[in-house]
């Protein structure tokens, strides 16, 4: 065992430092923990705004309901994929889990671009209101991303940038889902553009910063 000899001292030292550890909970359970925070925020928003405006808007424009459903599914699958990739040895294919949900979310929102031609009567957001949406998505994404980063630092994400992109996607999707509750306008090209800009911003910041934050873990 000559290849073992140079490492005997290190193995011995690691042995002396060994203390019992609490095993990491399974990824689905950790995802559920994070989603609980999102649900708590959603409950507060529903208490404040009520559920009626959202239901009326969704009844009038079913494509927005599909987009909302897609955003919720993207948040769940994105967070699940991030937590799974935080465990060494798991298949990298998990990174693609949020793809179908994200396609539904972005695709259905994209129909909103045609809103002014499909239903000219609906109230369309102006630039000022769109800026509010931008601020909403970003300001909710920051704490939700931070929570995911903290939870994932306890794990071991071997591909920090990929995991950080998933964190960005999950928290931006969760924020867009929350926005559905108190969104007063239907999607239009300007509105969709600001949403896309906000999501891209959150994903990019996470990839740039989160990667570094996670790789120190």
């Amino acid at each position: 065992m000559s290849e073992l000899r140079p490492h005997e001292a290190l193995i011995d030292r690691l042995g002396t430092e060994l203390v019992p550890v609490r095993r990491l909970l399974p990824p689905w359970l950790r995802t559920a923990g994070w989603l609980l925070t999102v649900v708590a925020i959603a409950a507060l928003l529903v208490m404040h705004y009520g559920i009626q405006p959202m239901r009326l808007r969704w009844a009038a424009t079913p494509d927005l309901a599909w987009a909302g459903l897609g955003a919720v599914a993207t948040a769940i699958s994105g967070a699940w994929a991030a937590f799974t990739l935080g465990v060494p040895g798991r298949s990298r294919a998990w990174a693609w889990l949020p793809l179908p949900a994200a396609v539904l979310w972005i695709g259905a929102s994209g129909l909103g671009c045609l809103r002014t031609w499909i239903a000219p009567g609906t109230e369309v957001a102006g630039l000022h209101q769109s800026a509010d949406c931008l601020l909403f998505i970003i300001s909710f994404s920051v704490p939700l991303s931070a929570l995911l980063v903290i939870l994932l630092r306890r794990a071991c994400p071997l591909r920090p940038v990929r995991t950080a992109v998933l964190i960005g996607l999950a928290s931006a999707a969760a924020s867009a889902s929350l926005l559905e509750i108190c969104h007063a306008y239907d999607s239009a090209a300007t509105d969709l553009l600001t949403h896309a800009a906000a999501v891209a911003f959150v994903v990019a910041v996470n990839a740039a910063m989160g990667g570094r934050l996670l790789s120190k873990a």
Partner: protein
Amino acid sequence: MSQALTANGLLGLDSGLCLRTGPRRIVPVDFTEARDSDSPDQRRAAWMAAAQAGDRRAYEKLLADSVALIRAAARRQGVAPDHLDDVVQETLITVHRVRHTYDPARSYDAWLTAIASRRAIDALRSRGRRDSREVHDEYAFDSHADEGDASSATESDERAQRLRDAIAELPPGQREAIEQLGLRERSLSEAAELTGRNTGALKVNLHRALKALRERFHGEP
């Protein structure tokens, strides 16, 4: 639950199934009692589960057993034979730090190989960065051809030997700091992990070692 006890059969299953098996998983009383019917992977999985509970004997057996696997993973990534031991050390330290992320219902070998491959890639990247800073041989020969004669080579050998001797004579703490941070180019946190000293002590020791060496060779305080 006999399957979960020996981590049989559940290897490779997705976490969708953990929904049913995860919370009911039972930790056996003595994992070090590896049975003949167990595969090497299952034996290591059992040792790691015991190590997570604090069993030092199982842990040391596991780490010793892991060295060959780490070397194989590093070789597959293209790490040169003389750098394999560095990757083994880095991987063992990472394994120690993230041992709580291992799930005994899954393959230990897959978990370890993922970490070892990552550390191998890190080692290759940092070597690549170091090599790209070095001057190309032909260019060096064209511009500094006269410096490479036999007497200067002997002189530089002697200088290197004198430096080695000087380092060997330093107090143990300072020698350790200069070996880890200066010669092996480890980061402060890596050196701290390896030596078991805190980063502040390492910095102070490195500073003192450099000062002592400067005084010895140049006579400057």
